[in-house]
């Protein structure tokens, strides 16, 4: 009995909830009521087959990307491959972009042919945005999932070249090679942000006794990371170690920013923050104090 895709309104009556297996999405559209209801129907229709499509090509999508490319057919799978392609010099599989790519796909289905003011699709923290001129959306960033609090607020306006936002870290549901509590990336799509956040979070790293790692295979049987050591615990570390780890990640983020792959990034580790790119003030204020 493999469960069906579930499409339902949230209890608040405003937002849409999409859930199937590991995919959990909250979406919201703004505009005339009739347009919103059509948009939600389109999103639900598109969502109904998305997991089955991904499962069909899962074996390919779990292979590290190389210069040879990956011959995938599904539209979400193609978004995943396109997003990881610029990063093919390092070890990365298209799965690094799966959440963001699903968010982008659902958003595209939701807004197609509709006249909405703005919309977002939040797939477990990887968010795809739609904004018309003059509109903006605000997002809060949570650095520590175990003690959720809003650690930063980002205002995303139509004029900014940002339509995707993603967060990665070792505390998240995906396995991480690095030790960042959270890395939040703004990019031109959620898929782009997703893979960048994963890779920057991997780069925030230090060899310290407080860091415990285990082979990915020990933690999850179907992982795409094989025997690579993934972080399972990060105890308190001295300030110097934290600074160095963040600097490594920030260097990586800065290189991506210069290559035009991301717009900005915020890196969080044990209360310290680094900001790369022109991020809005609140995160910087938080970083200072």
């Amino acid at each position, binding site marked *: 009995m*493999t469960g069906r895709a579930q499409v*339902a309104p949230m209890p608040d009556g405003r937002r849409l909830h999409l859930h199937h297996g*590991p995919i959990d999405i909250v979406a919201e559209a703004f505009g005339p009521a009739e347009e919103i209801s059509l948009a939600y129907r389109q999103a639900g229709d598109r969502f109904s087959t998305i997991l089955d499509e991904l499962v069909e090509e899962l074996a390919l999508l779990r292979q590290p990307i190389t210069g040879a490319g990956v011959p995938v057919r599904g539209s979400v799978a193609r978004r995943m491959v396109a997003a990881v392609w610029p990063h093919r010099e390092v070890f990365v599989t298209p799965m690094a972009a799966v959440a963001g790519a699903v968010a982008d796909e659902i958003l595209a289905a939701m807004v197609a042919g509709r006249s909405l003011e703005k919309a977002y699709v939040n797939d477990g923290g990887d968010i795809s945005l739609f904004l018309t001129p003059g509109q903006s959306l605000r997002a809060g960033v949570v650095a520590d999932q175990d003690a959720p*609090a809003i650690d930063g607020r980002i205002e995303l306006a139509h004029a900014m070249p940002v339509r995707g936002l993603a967060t990665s870290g070792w505390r998240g549901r995906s396995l991480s090679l690095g030790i960042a509590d959270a890395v939040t990336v703004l990019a031109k799509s959620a898929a782009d942000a997703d893979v960048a956040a994963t890779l920057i979070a991997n780069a925030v790293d230090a060899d310290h006794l407080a860091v415990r790692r285990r082979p990915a295979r020990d933690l*999850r049987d179907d992982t795409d990371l094989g025997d690579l050591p993934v972080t399972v615990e990060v105890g308190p570390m001295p300030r110097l170690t934290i600074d160095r780890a963040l600097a490594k990640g920030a260097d990586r983020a800065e290189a991506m920013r210069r290559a035009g792959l991301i717009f900005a990034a915020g890196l969080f580790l044990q209360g310290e923050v680094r900001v790369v790119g022109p991020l809005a003030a609140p995160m910087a204020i938080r970083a200072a104090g």
Partner: protein
Amino acid sequence: MSEEGAVVRCDACPVLCRIREGRTGACDRYANHDGRLVRLDPLVVTERADARVPFLEGAAEWSGALVREPQSFVTGIGASTTYPDYKPAPFIVGSQIDGIDMVTVVSEGIFSYCGLKVKIDTDRYLGPEQAAVRTGGEQVGHVTTAEYGSQMLSLGGVRHLTGGSKQEGNVTCQALLDLCNRKPVEVQIDGGSTVMLQAGAAPVVNGAREERMRVGCGSAAIGIFAKQWHGHADEVIVVDDHITGVLTEHQAGRFLDLPPSGIRVRGRKSTPGRYFQVAEPGLGWGGTHITDPLEIVEKINPKVAWPGLRLLMVSTTGEDAAWFVLDENLRPAPAPMPDPIAKVVDRIAENCEPALTTVMFMAGAGGSLRAGVTENPVRLTRSVKQALTRVTCGGAPVYVWPGGGITLMVDVTRMPESSFGYVPTPALVAPIEFTLRREDYAALGGHLGAILPVQEVLASARLRREPWREANPWPMEPGRVLERS
């Protein structure tokens, strides 16, 4: 080999993860625990705030103001359980409410003996009593005794879950799970209708959405409102797909000594003033296909009717109504409706409630589940019966049946979102909490050593915090638990 044998194939979604002992699947929601597939949803805690603090949009930092801690109630959702329950329940939570030590035993029960009672607000014919109710061709339940204004289904139960084929069990389990989690489910009734069911939503019968419950059939409407029309109309015809009522022929009209009007409606006469099949079923007046009410008037007897006769035609929901006065040729001519008549038409509408599908989850918290609470399970049953122990499901109040055992019913719409899960047995997993005073817990042989302070549970477990549903009584009100009969 043992390693191989311990792998569980999770079939909760198409990813079909192979999960080794002690691991979780890709979703982090299902895990292999002792070779069994278990759900690992976060524990749901509901919180009732004593004081509300204004939340400043864009406030940069936490104010740290002195707010009284919100009161927390740990639900069984995500608590997970062991089956059979040979160990204490996953969480036995101790907290102090107004100086009294309270204990809540929190668990997720695995229910093979469970099912749904579904009430569908419609007078439409859904199918004969005892007819099979199916999803995807498999029988998942049956039509049971109708109630006033509503049709009733009994779905699930141990015979469909585990007594039939594997396929029947799985389809039944999925249908119950979806209905309990407030998802829509379409059922087909043998010899009857196709109905779309969703808890708290309007039923959809053969593709037509039921918006309102009619006040009664056409005949019942005549019975209810005859006196209020008396003196203001000479004839009233209440148009209804089931039974159309004609006031002057009806018992209620005779009782008021109303003279016959000579207006004869189409259809098959049942008893005086009551007619079946005045028109085809449809989306027009009173569930018929007509949009011009005069279509159902077969003839007007010139020997009986008189010019100036005042005729009201109205549907059973009051949504459609028209006023006519017979002209010199005894033809009904439309006229402005007098106020006293319009008032009664509005009253019909006012008496029609929104049509809903309601889903009551019914289950027996039997044998072993009680062992998670106490070493002496029958004492828990007695304590529940004596109202010393309050039973809730996801914090929602339940009705406990009199007699033996703990057989309960709960309205799924009063429980948090996605409260239910399943195990491949197949059986449903539902949250259940028992709340009682600590001294009463000790008296019934409770697992006192397993009690954790509420703060510890809140600090340790993976939590999903939800606001308390104000319509539900707070389970830890000592007074409520202590009501003794």
